[in-house]
Structure formats: structure tokens, C-alpha cells
């Protein structure tokens, strides 16, 4: 077993032990320079800024903690995890937050090199300056749609945008029935990578927060004891921590709390169905 793998395994084990050990491990990861730099490199390449990098890095740690606690962690190494999860979280951020999406699109729209590249490819292939300008603007609109629909996989965004514009212009040429583009062989349509995997509820955070608020402290506590790391504590231990007589009482309380939770959800008439989001 490699040193790196050993240290990864140690991190996973301490997170699974919970309590202070988990907290100090997560703090260690939070300050981990290499993982941070890995995230930063991917986010910057993907059009994000420092603020985005920070948000994405924190989301990666939350996701790591969750995947380990839920026995869903399956990456070869933590570095792989941070690399893959950064892309996932960045794409989710762009998919869900219009202001961030528009910030990235704005930066691309103001990029003179990118404009020059698109102009070059259009004008080299039977287009004029006006076509190039239209292609660039249509490319930005299409990219916005692609980001919203999750068709972007978190790679270099300039390359992705260039490919989008290229495909737009190629289709335009097909419509005009002119000669195909000169270097078409070099520019195949964007191949989508493996679907991005993220483990999270399909309930919105807002809804979960509302349910949490109405659940009550006692139910929050017993659910936390039971499900934070499933079966870490026996029902006897849960009973002791809850100040209940015995395991049976703890089990009954737990059943009541699950029922209450469900009722709170039904009140919101939410068609709850848990799936592994892809």
C-alpha cells in the first residue's frame, strides 16, 4: 500500500470515528494546500474566480465527509476525489446560480483572444466579420443553456466555448450548403465525459431547512445520533445519550421522529423520491 494511500485511509478512518477526530481531520483538509491548489487550478481554468474556488473547495469537503459517512466513497485517492469533485461542484454551481453563470459568460464575452480565435475560424471558413460576431454571441447564448442543462463537465471553459462556436458555425455552413469546414477532422463534436456523480438530496436546501426548524431539538438530536454515521451507536447508547430508560424507548422515539419528519415533508406536498443524482 502506497504512503499516499495509507494517509488517505487514515483520513477516511478518522472521519468515520466522528467527534473531535473527525473535526480535526476536516480542519486539516480545509487547510490542505495541495488539495486547495488542485481545486483552484481547475476552477480558474473553468472560468471561476477566487470566491468560486473557495465555495467549490468547501463543497468538496462537505461532499467528502458525506460520502465517507454514507459508505459511498469510492475514489482511488483523495487527490482524485478533489479533482473530480471540483468539476462536479463547479458545474452544479454554474447550473444553479444564474449570477455566477453570467459572471463567467461575461468574462468570456470580454475575452479579446477568444473573439480573435472565433473570428479567425469563421472567416477562414467562408464567413465574414458579421458572421463571426453573430457566431460569438450565439455561442454565448448556447453556452448559457448548456451550463444550465449540465452539458458542461467542468473542463477548460474557453476550449468548450470555442468548440461550441465551431459547431454552431459548422451547422450554419451546412444550412447554407457551402463547402464543409477546412479542418473539420480536428474538431469533432464535444464528447461528453462520464456522467458527473454527486450524492445529495433531491430536496432543496430551503425545504430541508424549513423541516429542520420545525422538527424540534429532541428529534434533531436522536436522528443525528442514529443517522450521522449509521449504526455507529447502538440503541442502548442512543438511549443513554438521550436520557431515555432503555433501547426500546429510544427505538420508539426514533420511529416517532421519522414519522414527524415525514409528515412535515408531506405538508409541503413534495413528491419525495430519493435517487442517486447524476
Amino acid at each position, binding site marked *: 500500500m502506497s504512503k499516499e494511500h495509507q494517509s488517505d485511509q487514515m483520513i477516511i478512518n478518522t472521519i468515520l470515528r466522528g467527534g473531535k477526530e473527525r473535526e480535526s481531520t476536516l480542519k486539516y483538509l480545509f487547510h490542505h494546500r495541495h488539495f486547495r491548489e488542485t481545486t483552484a487550478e481547475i476552477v480558474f481554468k473553468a472560468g471561476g474566480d477566487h470566491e468560486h474556488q473557495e465555495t467549490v473547495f468547501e463543497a468538496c469537503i462537505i461532499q467528502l465527509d458525506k460520502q465517507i459517512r454514507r459508505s459511498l466513497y469510492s475514489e482511488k485517492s483523495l487527490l482524485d476525489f478533489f479533482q473530480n469533485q471540483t468539476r462536479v461542484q463547479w458545474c452544479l454551481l454554474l447550473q444553479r446560480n444564474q449570477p455566477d453563470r453570467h459572471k463567467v459568460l461575461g468574462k468570456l464575452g470580454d475575452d479579446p483572444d477568444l473573439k480573435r480565435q472565433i473570428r479567425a475560424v469563421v472567416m477562414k471558413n467562408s464567413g465574414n466579420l458579421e458572421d463571426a460576431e453573430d457566431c460569438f454571441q450565439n455561442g454565448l447564448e448556447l453556452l448559457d443553456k448548456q451550463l444550465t442543462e449540465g452539458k458542461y463537465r467542468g473542463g477548460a471553459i474557453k476550449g468548450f466555448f470555442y468548440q461550441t462556436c465551431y459547431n454552431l458555425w459548422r451547422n450554419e455552413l451546412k444550412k447554407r450548403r457551402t463547402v464543409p469546414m477546412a479542418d473539420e477532422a480536428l474538431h469533432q463534436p464535444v464528447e461528453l465525459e462520464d456522467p458527473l456523480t454527486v450524492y445529495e438530496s433531491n430536496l432543496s436546501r430551503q425545504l430541508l431547512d424549513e423541516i429542520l426548524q420545525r422538527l424540534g431539538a429532541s428529534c*434533531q438530536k436522536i436522528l443525528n445520533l442514529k443517522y450521522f454515521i449509521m449504526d455507529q451507536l447502538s440503541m442502548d447508547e442512543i438511549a443513554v445519550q438521550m436520557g431515555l430508560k432503555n433501547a426500546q424507548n429510544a427505538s420508539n422515539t426514533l420511529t416517532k421522529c421519522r414519522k414527524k419528519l415525514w409528515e412535515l415533508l408531506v405538508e409541503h406536498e413534495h413528491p419525495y423520491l430519493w435517487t442517486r443524482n447524476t
Partner: protein
Amino acid sequence: MDQKYIERAETYLRGNLAESDRKNFERDLASDPELKLAFDQCRLAMDVVDRQVEIDLSSKFRHWGKEKDSGRSHLMSLAWKIAASVAVIIGVYFILFQRSPTLSHQQLALKFYQTPPAPDRTMGGEDRLWAKGIEAYQQQQYRVAIDNWSRITRRTPEVSYFLANAYFNNMDYQSAILIFKDLSEGGSIYSFRMEPCPVVFIHWATGTL
């Protein structure tokens, strides 16, 4: 709801079922509404707990971030303090030692050298030149003192000693050091008065220390 449904759902959600058991569970999940409800309830409980954890972690991130920033700013402030101290030391050094080097050495030597007070008039006898020199020496008019004392033909060790001091204060180090060295070879009380200070100060003043 039957507890056995909950236990089955939790076993599945723990993620350590064998492949065949997992497939069986998923098949039953699609056809058994009781099992589906148990599964959804457990899943919801886990989601709520995960959201709680997320909120808790986000607040910890803010705290750790501040810790990091304050640690960084503490380091920065320490670095600034060190830099300021170094700057002050360098500044003082330049002011004292580097600004016009010869002059500042002279000034320092003059500042720190304890010029002996003017002798009693009677000590030099009735010699008019001696008395005028003393008067000038008292008023720190060393040039005048030198003019008078250097004209004394019978130069006692006392006259030599104060003449050398006048030369020193007048920054004529060559003349001062010759007299001081001459005195140091004699056996008068002035030979003891001058070791090692005046010569050291002359070397300091001339930058040859």
C-alpha cells in the same frame, strides 16, 4: 410501520449488501409500498441530518477561515514589526555611521570623548599665554587656546596635555596624537591620564580604529 421494513431499508442504505441482495431489495422497493415508505423515511432522516452537518460545517469553515486570516495577519503584523525594527536600526546606523563617514566619526568621537575641564590658572604659573589659552579653552575656543599654548617655549606635561586636548577638539588629530604619544612615553601624571582614551578616540575620529 413494521420495524423490519425500516431495518431492511437501513441495511440497504448502509451500502454493504451483496450484489444479489441489493438487486432483490431494489426489486421489492419497486413493488412494496410499505418498504418504499420505510426507505423514503430513512432516506429523509439521513438527508435532514446531512443538511444539519452541512450547516455546521459551513459555520466551521467560516471560523477556520477567520483563524487562518488572523494567523496570517498576525504573521504579517509580526513581519511588519520586524521590518520596521530593521528599518529603524538601519536608519539609526546610517544616521550615526554612514552619513558623511569621516565627519560622523569625528562628531561621535568628540561627543563621547570627555574633554578634561580647563586647568586652574595658577597651575600654569603666571605665564600670560597659558592664562589666555585657559580662558579660550574654557569658552571652547580651542583654536585660540592652541595659538596661545603652542607659543609657550617651556612646555610642561600639563601644557602639552591640554594643548593636545585642544588639538583634538579642534579636529587636528595628527597634532593631537603626536603630543599624546609623546606624553605617554614620559613619566608625568599626564601619562596616566591619557591611557588609552585619547588615542582610541583619535583613531575613532579618523576612522582608523
